[in-house]
């Protein structure tokens, strides 16, 4: 057990955490605007990663183009899903849309598994970001540093959009008081489809960035969605800042799990358990989450 290992684990935790942040941010925005807990979020993340891989396989599309094209395509797919299915159930108990997106997630995942198998597909980082960088106590893959910085920059940009623009103001208002916002002359429903597409595109963007870090597999979305729910509970449902902070926090908790394992306590595979213990503690101490309002909407 030494500084090098700890530094690497911490950075790995931050890499994971920045994906969690990006994904739970999309979940939070979607929940705020639609009151839908989008269980298909992990599937869209997986489709983003597969999108990048397929674009490279079929048309030699480089990473820097895939990072735009895959989220765009998957975001449009999300908008179609909202328009054709989610919207039809939106006047019913939110449970219906939870079940619907759960079904969509399973269907998409199995379809991809049938077509491409469960074998992980390697996806190379772009030329400019290969190799390692000196981070002091250790050398660390340059691409992973990029992944952290890029994901957090996107989070910051989304925060700016939500906190500082007129559209963001409408999203916040509709999240807090949908009916009142309508009564004040704002056409809330017009923004529902674009906001859903945007949240889904963020998940896909996470998938593209994750593709060179982890292997691209049909089940990568199922793995991450479970963790995302812990992130959402810890951060507070619908809270933007909470999504980002809790995402990073959960990444670091996962890293701590790894460090304990390496430390010889043999807590291997207890990484997730640690995350859910943290979730339980937050739930008991602050049921609305670290950043949640006691009662919203």
């Amino acid at each position: 057990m030494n500084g090098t290992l700890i530094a690497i684990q911490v950075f790995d935790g931050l890499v994971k955490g920045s994906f969690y942040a990006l994904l739970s941010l999309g979940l939070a925005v979607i929940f705020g605007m639609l009151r839908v807990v989008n269980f298909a979020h992990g599937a869209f993340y997986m489709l983003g990663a597969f999108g990048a891989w397929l674009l490279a396989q079929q048309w030699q599309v480089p990473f820097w183009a895939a990072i735009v094209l895959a989220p765009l395509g998957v975001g449009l797919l999300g908008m179609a899903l909202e328009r054709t299915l989610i919207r039809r159930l939106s006047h019913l108990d939110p449970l219906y849309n939870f079940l619907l997106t759960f079904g969509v997630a399973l269907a998409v995942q199995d379809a991809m598994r049938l077509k491409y198998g469960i074998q992980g597909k390697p996806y190379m980082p772009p030329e400019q970001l290969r190799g390692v960088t000196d981070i002091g106590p250790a050398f660390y893959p340059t691409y992973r540093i990029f992944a952290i910085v890029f994901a957090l920059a996107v989070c910051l940009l989304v925060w700016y959009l939500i906190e500082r623009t007129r559209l963001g103001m409408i999203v916040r208002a509709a999240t807090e008081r949908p009916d009142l916002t309508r009564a004040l002359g704002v056409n809330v429903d017009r923004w529902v489809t674009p906001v859903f597409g945007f949240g889904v595109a963020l998940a896909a963007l996470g998938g593209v960035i994750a593709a060179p870090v982890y292997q691209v597999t049909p089940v990568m979305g199922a793995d991450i969605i479970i963790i995302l729910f812990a992130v959402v509970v810890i951060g507070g449902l619908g809270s933007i800042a909470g999504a980002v902070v809790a995402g990073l926090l959960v990444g670091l908790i996962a890293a701590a799990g790894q460090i304990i394992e390496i430390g010889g306590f043999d807590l291997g595979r207890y990484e997730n358990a640690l995350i859910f213990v943290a979730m339980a503690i937050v739930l008991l101490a602050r049921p609305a989450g670290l950043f949640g309002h006691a009662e919203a909407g």
Partner: protein
Amino acid sequence: MPDALLAVDNLSAWYGEAQALRDITVTVREGETVTLVGRNGAGKTTTLRCLIGLHRQARGRIALGGREIATLAPHRRARLGLGYVPDDRGIYATLSVEENLLLPPTVGPDPWSLDRIYAAFPRLRERRRANGTTLSGGEQQMLAIARVLRMGARLLLLDEPTEGLAPVLVQQLEALLLEAKRQGVAMLLIEQNLRFATAVADRHYLLALGQIVDELTSEQVRERSHQILEHMGV
């Protein structure tokens, strides 16, 4: 006599099986201020919610400026000039004071500018970057009314704006509503405070058990205030 700006004709409303409003017929003329007076549970709030379109289990005709609006979505009604101030004031915690003012689109020919609002309420200018709900209750009430004036709404729907306000704030509110009135803004005001109601309004509808039981001038309300207060169970 000026034309009816708002004409509500035989409006009935339900909560499930329970009927809350029975054949409400109310008019508000251009520039006029009209109150709905009645005891708790009489159906005042429900009436306003039907007018703005938030309560959908309703039947009857609602015309604004001669246009039938009963089937329109709430945001369309607001854009035709309705400025809604709900009974809980409806200030957003996640919006700054200034964002609370700027959220609704401007809908009328004569919206108040931010400068004018800030000149009238220096306190709102001071706190314009703070979250809306960090204001005191009275300040939130002013903000809610300033918000619909900034829209340029031509008919304000005000649900008990004086409720819980200190007397000095009630006076400020009176001055503000009278200024809006001079500008030609019409109001449908729910009010339990008869002194306030008669100071700002021209006519009064008495509501009981979801029905209009009487229509009075301010003069008549002053004369019969004992009887009305008794009726309201105050």
